[in-house]
C-alpha cells in the first residue's frame, strides 16, 4: 500500500511511515535450539582437543611426519564452525536484520586485508632487495644508485659483448659505457649528444647545480631569450665538466 493512500492524515507522521514500519517483533530462539547449539559447541571443543592429542600422539609416538599446516588447518576449521554457530544462533544473526551480518562480514573482509597485505610485506622482506639491491642500495641518495656488474668487451671487430656480472660502478656510468660501446661513437660525439639531450646551450656543458641555475631550452624553448645554440663547432660542447656524471 502506498503511504499517501492512508485514510486519515497524521500530522505527526505526514509520510505515513508508520504503516511501513518494521513491526516484525523479536525472534525468540527456542530453548531446544539453544540447548542443541551448546551441546554441539561442547562436542566440537572436545573434537578439537582430541584432534590435537591425536596429532601429538602420531608425531611423538608413531613418528609420523605431519605437514606444518595440518595442525592449524584442523584447529581453525573447527573454530570457524564454532564461531559461526555462536554468531548465527546465540547472537541470532540467522534470524535478525541482515545488516548486522553485513557489518560482521565487513569485519572479516577487513581482517582478510590486514592478513593479506601484512603477510605480503612480511613475506617479501629481504626478497625485495635481492633483485633490487644491485641497482638501489639503502640510504636513498642518488649517488648510491649502482649497477652490480657488467663487463663491456669490445673486440674492435664490430662485436661488443656485455658480461653483466663484472662491471661495478654507478648505474649511469654503466649505461654511458654501454651506449658508447654499442653505438661505436667517440667520447667527443657522446658529449655532444649528451649536451643536446640535456638541453645544454651555454657552451660550458655544465648543468644547473644547487648554487647556479642555468637556462636551458627544452620544453619551453621559446622562453629562452638566448635561443637554441647554433654554433655546434664550439669547444664547449666537446668538453663538459669532467666531474659531471653523464645522464644526470
Amino acid at each position, binding site marked *: 500500500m502506498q503511504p499517501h493512500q492512508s485514510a486519515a492524515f497524521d500530522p505527526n507522521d505526514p509520510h505515513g511511515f508508520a504503516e511501513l*514500519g518494521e513491526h516484525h517483533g523479536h525472534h525468540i530462539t527456542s*530453548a531446544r535450539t539453544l540447548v542443541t547449539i551448546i551441546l554441539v559447541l561442547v562436542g566440537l571443543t572436545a573434537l578439537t*582437543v582430541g584432534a590435537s592429542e591425536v596429532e601429538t600422539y602420531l608425531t611423538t609416538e608413531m613418528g609420523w611426519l605431519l605437514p606444518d599446516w595440518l595442525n*592449524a588447518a584442523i584447529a581453525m576449521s573447527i*573454530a570457524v564452525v*564454532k*564461531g559461526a554457530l555462536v554468531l548465527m544462533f*546465540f547472537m541470532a544473526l540467522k534470524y535478525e536484520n541482515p545488516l548486522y551480518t553485513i557489518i560482521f562480514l565487513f*569485519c572479516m573482509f577487513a581482517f582478510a586485508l590486514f592478513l593479506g597485505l601484512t603477510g605480503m610485506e612480511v613475506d617479501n622482506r629481504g626478497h625485495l632487495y635481492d633483485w633490487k639491491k644491485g641497482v638501489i642500495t639503502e640510504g636513498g641518495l642518488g649517488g648510491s644508485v649502482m649497477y652490480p656488474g657488467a663487463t663491456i668487451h669490445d673486440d674492435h671487430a664490430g662485436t661488443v659483448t656485455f658480461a653483466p656480472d663484472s662491471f661495478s660502478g654507478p648505474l649511469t656510468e654503466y649505461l654511458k659505457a654501454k651506449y658508447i660501446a654499442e653505438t661505436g661513437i667517440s667520447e667527443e660525439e657522446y658529449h655532444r649528444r649528451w649536451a643536446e639531450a640535456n638541453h645544454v646551450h651555454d657552451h660550458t656543458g655544465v648543468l644547473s647545480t644547487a648554487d647556479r641555475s642555468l637556462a636551458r631550452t627544452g620544453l619551453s624553448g621559446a622562453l629562452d631569450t638566448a635561443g637554441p645554440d647554433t654554433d655546434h663547432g664550439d669547444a664547449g660542447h666537446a668538453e663538459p665538466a669532467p666531474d659531471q656524471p653523464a645522464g644526470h
Partner: protein
Amino acid sequence: MTTIDTHSKRQPGWKRYAFANHFRNAEDEFDACKLGFWLFLATEILLFAGLFCAYAMYRVKFPEAFAAGSHHLDIRWGGLNTLVLLVSSFTVAMSIRCAQLDNQKWLRINLVITILCAFMFFFIKLTFEYIPKWSHGIRPGVLYSNPFAGHPQEPVWWSVYYGATGIHALHVLIGASLLLWCLYRSLRYKAYGPTHYTMLENSGLYWHLVDVIWIFLFPLLYLIH
C-alpha cells in the same frame, strides 16, 4: 535516557519504560541501539583482528618459538575455560529468551550463572596461568627473565600470548560488569521484559563476542605443536 520511575512499585520496570521521544516507537529505539552496538562490536572485532594478524605473522616467522612457548600452557586449564565461556554464552542467551517471555526468575538465575562463569574464567586465568608463569620469569618481551627459554624468539610468543589473552581477559571483566549491572537492574526494577530488554540484549551480544574471540584464541594458543 532511561525514564524509569524508581518510586513507583506498581508495575515492573520494563512496562514503565518509555522510549526516547526522538524515536517513533520502542521498536525503532531497540533497532537503533542494536545497530549502534553492532558497529561498536565491529571495532572490537577489528581490535582483535590486529592481534590475530600479529599472531599469524609471528607464527609464520617463528613457528618453533610458538611451539616451544605453547608447551608451557596446560591444555586442561585452557579447555576448562573454553567450556566455562561456552556455558556462560548459553546462559546469557537463555536469560534473553527469559526476558522475551517475561520469566523473571530464570532470567536472573541465568544471569547469575553467566556472571559466576565470567569470574571463574578470570580466576582460573589469573591463578593457574598468569601468576605461576609470571613468577617463573615467563613474561612478555623484554620483561622475559626465564633462563630456560626453548627458543631465542620465545619472548615474542609470550608478548603475543599476554597481549591477546590480557585484552581478552579485560573484555571478560567488562562483560561481567555489564551483566552485573543488568542483574542489579533486573533485581531492583524488573527492568527487562518482552517489550524492553535493550541493555540485556546488547550486553549479551558483547558477551557472545568475548566467547567467539576465545573460541579462536584457545586452539591458536593451546593446541600448537
